C-alpha cells in the first residue's frame, strides 16, 4: 500500500482510532479494577468497537476491522444478556490482547508500513470465549434474559452495508425501509434521519445502516425482503431481545413516532437530532481542533525568534542610553504582547500527565499478574501539565521506575505478610507543581534499598571515590544512578533489560531534570524527579567573564554579592570556599574553569553568585552581572554534542545584539565540584560525572 502519511483522512483515522483504543484500554483496566463490567462500560466498549470496525473497514484495514467485529459481537452478546459471565479476568486479558494488536497495527501504519498483522489468533480466542459464555448460559437462558416478548412480536436488527460505488446510500436505505414498512409493527433506524440529515449518506457508508424492527414475520422473510435492496454488499439480520430493542428505541423517540418517512425531502425538521455518535463528534469539533505537533514546534520556534527580535529592537546598541519616552512606552507594549503570545503558545503545548500515568496502570497490571504479586497503583495529581516534549522524554524513565518498583521494590506476598504489612503492595505515582518545575514522585511501600548491598557493589565496581563514613544515606543511594552500577546480573522479564538507572538519569537530564532517591529499610523507596515546566524559554541572568557571556537560569540563583577577602578560606589543595551566614560554600571561578582570558582574578573586583540545586550550593565567581532577561534555549550544535566533552554547559542562547551566550548547567557544575576538584575539568571529575 502506498504511503498515506500526511493524507488528512488517514491521519484522522489514526488519531481517532488511537484515541478509541486508548479509551478502551483505560475502560478495561477500570472495569477490571472495579471487579465487574458495568452495563455502561459494556455499551461504551460496544460503541468503541463499532466505530473502530466501521472506520477500519472504510480504510481497508481488514485485520483491525475483523478483530473489532469479533469483539463487537462479543460485547453485543454481553449487552443483550446482562447476566455476568464467570470469568471477567479472562475477558480483560483477551480485550487487552486485542488492544495490543490494534496498537501494533496502528504503530505500523504510522511508520508507513502496511498493517499486515494476523488477527486470526485473537479472533479465534474471542470466538471461543463467546461460545463458552453462550454455552455456560444455556441452562438459565430465558430466565436471565429479561421479559419474554409479551406481544408475540419478534425483534430483529438488520445491518445493511452498501457497495463502494453506491451513490446516495441514504436513499437506498430509505427504499429498503419503505418496501418493508407495511410488514413491521414498529421500527427505528440508525441514522435516524435518512433524508433530512446531510450526514446520513456518510454515516451509512462508514458504519452501515441499522434497522431495528418489531414484527410478526419470520427472520427469513425479512432477509429475503431486504436482500432485494439495490447496491447491497452485506446484510446481517439477527434476532434481539426486547430489552435491546427498547434500548435502541428510547421512549421519547417512540412518542415522537417513527421518523418522517412520509414527508418528502427536504422537510427541514429542526428537531431531527442526529444520533449520539454524530452529536458527539459534532460537539467536539466546535470546541477543539487537532493540530499536528510539528506545527506547534514551528510556532514555538517562531515565538522564540520573536523574543530574540524583540530584544534586538529594545536593547539595540544604537539607542542605548538615549531618553526616548515614546519609544520606551511602545517597547513596553510590545514586550507585554510578546510575553502573552509566548505564554499562550506554551499553554497550548502543555499536556496533562494523565495519559502517561495511566499507561503505568497497564504495566503494573501485567507485571503483578506475571510475578504473582498483589500490587495497587495509586495516581495522584495526574492533571498536572507539562510540555509535550518533556512528556515524551519522561515516559520511558517512569516506566522503568515503575517496573523496578514492582519487580525489586515490592516484596512477595509472603515476605510482606511476614513483615506484618498488608499483602497488597502500593505504588504511588504523584505529580505536583512546584513553582517553575514539576515534581514527579514514584513511591513504593516495599523493602527499601539495600544500603550495604549498594556500597559493596559500588566498591566492587570501583565507583566509590569517597570514604564510606563520610557519605550520608542519601548520597549512598544516589550511587545507583552512576553509569556502570546496574549490571545485567539481575535480568528478569521486566526490569534490567540492559537499561540501568544511569540511562533513566540521562533521559531525565536531557530535559533539564534531575532525579534523586530516598529510602528507608522496610518502609519503601521514593524516587523524586524534578523537571522544568518547559524547555524552550527560561528566565536567565546574563553574566560576563572577560569577553565571554554566560546565562544562568534564575531559578538556580539564590543571591549574588561582593565578597570580602576575610570571608574566603583556601584549603591546602588550593580550593577556595566562602563563609556565608555560618555556612561554607565552595567557590568556582568561571574564568579558571572555562579558561577565559581577560577575566577578573581578584575576588574583590568581581561578583559571586550563589547557585543552588538539590540542596547543594556553590558560588560562581564572575566579572559582572549584565541583567535578567527571558532567553530562548537552543541546543549546542549536534557536532559539539557528539564530541561529548562539554561539561557545565547545557545549551546556548542568542542575545539581543546577536551574540551567543552559553547557558550554564548548575547541576553539571555542582557535579564537577563534587569531587573537590576546583580547577578546570580533570579526568577524575569527568569519570565521576559521566563516565
Amino acid at each position: 500500500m502506498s504511503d498515506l502519511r500526511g493524507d488528512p483522512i488517514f491521519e484522522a483515522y489514526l488519531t481517532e482510532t488511537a484515541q478509541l483504543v486508548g479509551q478502551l484500554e483505560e475502560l478495561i483496566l477500570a472495569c477490571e479494577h472495579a471487579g465487574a463490567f458495568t452495563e455502561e462500560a459494556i455499551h461504551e466498549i460496544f460503541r468503541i468497537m463499532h466505530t473502530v470496525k466501521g472506520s477500519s473497514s472504510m480504510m481497508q484495514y481488514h485485520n483491525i476491522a475483523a478483530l473489532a467485529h469479533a469483539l463487537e459481537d462479543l460485547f453485543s452478546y454481553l449487552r443483550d444478556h446482562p447476566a455476568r459471565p464467570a470469568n471477567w479476568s479472562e475477558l480483560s486479558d483477551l480485550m487487552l490482547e486485542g488492544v495490543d494488536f490494534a496498537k501494533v497495527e496502528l504503530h505500523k501504519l504510522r511508520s508507513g508500513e502496511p498493517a499486515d498483522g494476523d488477527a486470526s489468533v485473537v479472533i479465534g480466542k474471542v470466538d471461543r470465549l463467546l461460545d463458552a459464555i453462550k454455552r455456560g448460559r444455556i441452562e438459565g437462558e430465558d430466565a436471565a434474559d429479561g421479559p419474554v416478548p409479551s406481544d408475540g412480536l419478534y425483534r430483529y436488527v438488520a445491518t445493511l452495508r452498501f457497495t463502494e460505488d453506491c451513490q446516495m446510500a441514504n436513499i437506498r436505505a430509505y427504499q429498503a425501509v419503505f418496501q418493508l414498512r407495511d410488514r413491521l409493527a414498529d421500527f427505528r433506524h440508525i441514522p435516524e434521519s435518512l433524508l433530512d440529515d446531510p450526514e446520513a449518506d456518510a454515516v451509512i457508508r462508514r458504519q452501515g445502516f441499522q434497522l431495528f424492527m418489531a414484527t410478526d414475520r419470520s427472520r427469513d422473510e425479512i432477509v429475503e425482503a431486504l436482500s432485494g435492496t439495490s447496491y447491497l454488499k452485506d446484510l446481517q439480520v439477527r434476532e434481539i431481545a426486547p430489552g435491546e430493542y427498547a434500548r435502541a428505541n428510547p421512549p421519547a423517540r417512540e412518542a415522537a413516532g417513527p421518523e418522517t418517512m412520509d414527508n418528502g425531502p427536504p422537510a427541514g425538521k429542526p428537531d431531527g437530532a442526529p444520533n449520539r455518535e454524530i452529536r458527539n463528534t459534532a460537539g467536539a469539533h466546535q470546541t477543539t481542533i487537532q493540530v499536528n505537533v510539528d506545527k506547534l514546534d514551528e510556532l514555538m520556534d517562531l515565538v522564540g525568534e520573536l523574543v530574540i527580535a524583540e530584544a534586538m529592537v529594545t536593547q539595540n546598541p544604537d539607542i542605548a542610553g538615549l531618553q526616548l519616552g515614546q519609544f520606551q512606552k511602545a517597547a513596553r507594549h510590545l514586550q507585554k504582547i510578546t510575553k502573552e503570545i509566548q505564554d499562550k503558545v506554551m499553554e497550548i503545548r502543555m499536556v496533562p500527565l494523565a495519559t502517561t500515568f495511566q499507561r503505568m496502570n497497564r504495566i503494573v497490571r501485567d507485571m503483578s499478574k506475571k510475578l504473582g504479586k498483589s500490587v495497587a497503583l495509586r495516581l495522584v495529581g495526574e492533571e498536572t501539565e507539562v510540555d509535550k516534549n518533556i512528556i515524551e522524554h519522561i515516559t520511558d524513565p517512569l516506566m522503568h521506575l515503575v517496573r523496578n518498583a514492582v519487580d525489586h521494590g515490592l516484596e512477595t506476598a509472603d515476605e510482606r505478610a511476614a513483615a506484618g504489612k498488608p499483602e497488597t503492595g502500593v505504588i504511588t505515582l504523584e505529580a505536583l507543581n512546584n513553582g517553575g518545575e514539576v515534581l514527579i514522585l514514584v513511591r513504593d511501600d516495599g523493602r527499601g534499598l539495600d544500603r550495604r548491598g549498594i556500597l559493596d557493589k559500588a566498591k566492587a565496581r570501583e565507583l566509590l571515590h569517597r570514604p564510606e563514613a563520610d557519605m550520608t544515606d542519601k548520597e549512598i543511594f544516589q550511587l545507583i544512578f552512576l553509569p556502570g552500577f546496574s549490571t545485567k546480573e539481575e535480568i528478569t522479564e521486566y526490569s534490567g533489560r540492559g537499561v540501568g538507572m544511569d540511562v533513566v538519569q540521562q533521559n531525565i537530564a536531557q530535559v533539564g531534570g534531575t532525579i534523586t532517591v530516598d529510602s528507608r529499610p522496610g518502609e519503601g523507596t521514593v524516587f523524586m524527579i524534578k523537571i522544568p515546566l518547559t524547555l524552550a524559554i527560561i528566565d536567565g541572568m546574563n553574566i560576563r567573564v572577560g569577553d565571554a557571556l554566560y546565562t544562568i537560569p534564575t531559578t538556580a540563583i539564590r543571591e549574588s554579592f561582593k565578597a570580602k577577602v576575610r570571608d574566603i578560606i583556601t584549603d591546602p589543595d588550593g580550593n577556595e570556599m566562602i563563609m556565608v551566614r555560618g555556612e561554607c560554600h565552595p567557590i568556582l571561578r568561571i574564568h579558571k574553569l572555562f579558561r577565559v582570558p581577560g577575566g577578573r582574578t581578584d575576588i574583590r573586583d568581581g561578583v559571586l553568585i550563589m547557585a543552588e540545586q538539590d540542596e547543594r550550593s556553590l558560588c560562581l565567581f564572575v566579572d559582572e552581572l549584565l541583567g535578567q532577561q527571558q532567553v530562548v534555549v537552543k541546543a549546542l550544535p549536534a557536532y559539539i554534542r557528539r564530541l561529548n566533552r562539554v561539561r557545565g554547559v547545557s545549551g546556548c542562547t542568542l542575545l539581543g545584539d546577536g551574540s551567543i551566550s552559553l547557558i550554564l548547567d548548575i547541576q553539571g557544575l555542582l557535579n564537577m565540584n563534587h569531587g573537590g576538584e576546583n580547577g578546570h575539568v580533570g579526568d577524575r571529575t569527568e569519570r565521576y560525572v559521566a563516565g
Partner: protein
Amino acid sequence: MSETARNDTLLDEEDSQKDKYLTFIVDGESYGIEIRYVTEIIGLQKITSVPDMPDFVRGIINLRGKIIPVMDMRVRFNKPFREYMERTCIIVVDIRDLSIGLIVDSVAEVVNIPAAAVAAPPDLTKRGNRFIMGIGQAAGEVKLLLDCEKLLTDEETEQLLNN
C-alpha cells in the same frame, strides 16, 4: 511542472555540480572541496568559544539565528594557529545534515577537475593527510582534495585511539 521536467532540472543541477571544487588556501597549500557540500562563504564572525573542545574547534557562531560550530582548518591539519586576518574566511558546509564552518586563510576559486585528473593520495598514514581523498590537477596547479565526511567523523576514531 511535469514530473520529467522536474527530474531534468534536478539532473542538470546535479550535473552542474559534478567535478566542481571550491579551492581555498591554508598555510600556503591549495585545497579543494566538492562544491555540493558548500552552502555559503562568509567573512569572519564573532566566535563564541565552547569549553572543553579539541583545539581545532574554535567555538560556535550565530549564522542568522542558526548556531553552527566552526573548525580551524590550520589546526585541523596540525599546522600552527595563526591569528585571523582580513582575508580569513569561513566556508559553511553541510555534511550529512550537519552544518559546520571551516575557517580558512582565504578562498581562491571554483575549478573543474574531472575524475580523470584526480590521483590517489601518496601516503595515507601520514598525519594531516588523513583528510585527503585525492590529488587533483587544474590549470597546472596541484590541489589537495578534501574528504569532507572524514573531517567530522575522524575525530571520534582519533579520540578512541588516544584513550
